[in-house]
């Protein structure tokens, strides 16, 4: 019998016994939904972390010191790091309480949520996922403590999850976010906490571009960058307190030299601030690997559940196939009498079971897709790879095939004369 005939016969049988078919592929659908969800989230996590690594820079190590650092200290530390390393500092964030936007925005308005950082130009060497309009902070700005500022601009259309949960509240729009999104502020003056800056650059993150940074490195509130030295100059009261930490970031370019850089960093900070200085080193590669490990661990449990559902589905299909063969023994006899070979009978029941598996896969993928939309943490960048779909279909079909093999073989083994006698 040719494949189209096998398919049409199989489909006719499935359609003729809709309820039975539905019950038998339901467990398969649950299993496939679990697989689909798990594989989609896992592949998304892998893809994202791959991108994260690519924008993060190789051999990246970060630490924080409680002390502000000077430009001579920058040069001194850089000289101790492995060759071709990039070193950059960032001050702690400073919250903007009020501001004036070139007289367009009223003085005294609360600008809750906007943050100002002081950075060195090298801060843009890594994690720079933006399209830069204008320019970034340069060394001249740093050396001369220029009152310049670079703003992040949120895209106008941010795809947000329809269902809002209570933990999403910190993601809400702030006045600054609204304002910078809807007004072009390049080359304009802004006054923030009584300090006036010229906007020299805007950092855009187009909605269609995936943010490859780790979630904790992303901005959910408007972020502004001013020169590192300017920050210490204009907010002295803030920096004089002994709790104004400086983030130090080193990128060596090679994973093999990250440890060496970490050692140099610790040594230098101790030499500068005494043996009590105990900087905690964060090796980015380790952080990424840890994230992956966490993702894998939590998803392993899901995969196990999916496997159990698939086995239950397979047993369901086996049970149904056996019942079908029992009720269609006479039909098998007639078909054998009319010229069907054992192989024809075997294929007929296998194709029918695999069609059931395919139905289960389709239903399961719809369920899995819904699960991804409603349960996955980060769906804005979720894409459904063809291989996840193909693998889900393959798993369902192979499961159905394996579990239907025994009953189908039993059917094929029936002697035509015995099958014909069956009533």
């Amino acid at each position, binding site marked *: 019998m040719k494949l189209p005939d096998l398919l049409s016969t199989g489909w006719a049988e499935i359609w003729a016994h809709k309820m039975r078919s539905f019950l038998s592929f339901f467990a398969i659908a649950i299993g496939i939904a679990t697989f689909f969800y798990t594989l989609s989230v896992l592949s998304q996590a892998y893809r994202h972390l791959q991108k994260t690594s690519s924008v993060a820079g190789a051999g990246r190590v970060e630490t924080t010191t409680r002390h502000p650092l000077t430009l001579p200290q920058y040069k001194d530390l850089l000289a101790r790091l492995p060759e071709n390393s990039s070193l950059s500092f960032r001050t702690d964030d400073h919250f903007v309480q009020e501001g004036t936007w070139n007289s367009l925005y009223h003085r005294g308005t609360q600008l809750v949520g906007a943050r100002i950082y002081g950075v060195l130009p090298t801060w843009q060497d890594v994690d720079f996922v933006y399209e830069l309009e204008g320019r970034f902070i340069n060394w001249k700005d740093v050396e001369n403590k220029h009152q310049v500022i670079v703003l992040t601009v949120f895209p106008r259309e941010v795809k947000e999850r329809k269902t809002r949960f209570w933990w999403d509240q910190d993601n809400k729009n702030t006045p600054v976010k609204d304002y910078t999104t809807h007004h072009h502020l390049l080359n304009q003056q802004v006054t923030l906490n009584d300090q006036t800056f010229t906007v020299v650059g805007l950092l855009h993150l187009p909605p269609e571009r995936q943010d490859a940074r780790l979630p904790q490195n992303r901005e959910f509130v408007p972020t502004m960058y001013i020169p590192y030295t300017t920050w210490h100059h204009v907010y002295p009261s803030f920096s004089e307190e002994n709790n104004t930490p400086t983030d130090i970031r080193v990128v060596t370019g090679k994973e093999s030299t990250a440890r060496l850089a970490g050692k140099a960093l610790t040594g230098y900070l101790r030499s500068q601030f005494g043996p009590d200085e105990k900087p905690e080193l964060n090796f980015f590669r380790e952080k990424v690997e840890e994230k992956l490990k966490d993702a894998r661990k939590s998803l392993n449990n899901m995969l196990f559940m999916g496997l159990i559902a698939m086995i239950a589905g397979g047993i369901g299909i086996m049970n149904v196939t056996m019942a079908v063969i029992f009720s269609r023994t006479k039909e098998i006899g007639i078909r054998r009498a009319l010229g069907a070979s*054992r192989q024809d009978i075997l294929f007929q029941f296998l194709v029918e079971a695999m069609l059931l598996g395919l139905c289960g896969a389709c239903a399961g993928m719809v369920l899995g897709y819904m699960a991804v939309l409603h349960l996955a943490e980060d769906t804005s960048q979720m894409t459904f790879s063809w291989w996840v779909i193909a693998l889900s279909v393959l798993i369902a079909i192979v499961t159905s095939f394996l579990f239907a093999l025994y009953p189908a073989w039993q059917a094929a083994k029936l002697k035509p004369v015995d099958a014909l006698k069956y009533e």
Partner: protein
Amino acid sequence: MVIAECKNLIKIYSGAQDFRALDEVSLSINQGEFVSIMGPSGCGKSTLLNILGLLDEPTGGEYLLNGTPTAKLSDAKRTRLRRDSIGFIFQSFNLMPKLSVQENIALPMRYTQRPRAEILERARQLAARVGLEDKLLNTPLQLSGGQCQRVACARALANEPSLILADEPTGNLDSKASTDILALLKELNDGGMTIIMVTHDPKIAAGTHRTIHMKDGKIV
């Protein structure tokens, strides 16, 4: 020319007590013959028909179909020989209830390599031959017993067999339908088809060329 030849066929059903259903049966059927087999229940008529139709294997003896010894054939070869050489007509029609008349007639051809269009066209022609051209899309449940048996006759002819085996083809039919089916079988036989028919009815057997009487697994 001999179509089917049996030499000392033995069929023993094993069980708590072995039962000898066929006891050294020898017979030969010539091309174009219309042979009826008669005998009381349990005499071995159906067993003989099943062996002649390659649905069952004898315990001993030899059966040649179109000159081919069948004893040592593999299941695949037996299936192919059965598909290409034998057409079956059953007492209870044995049609597929969910398939249309056309699909039922086409069923034996589905197991060949013929193209689908050719299969459907031949099924239509065969339906016309048995007078059911206007019922092509009906299912067996929408037909009378006589019409169902006509469909079964058309199906038996699908792969142009050299031998038709009919197991009490009129057993489930009223007298009018029985007469029609018998007339159809005679018409087929007149066209050169070899037919072996099991029947209980001496009147029907009288209409065939030769009647084989069986008793206790033997031809008498």
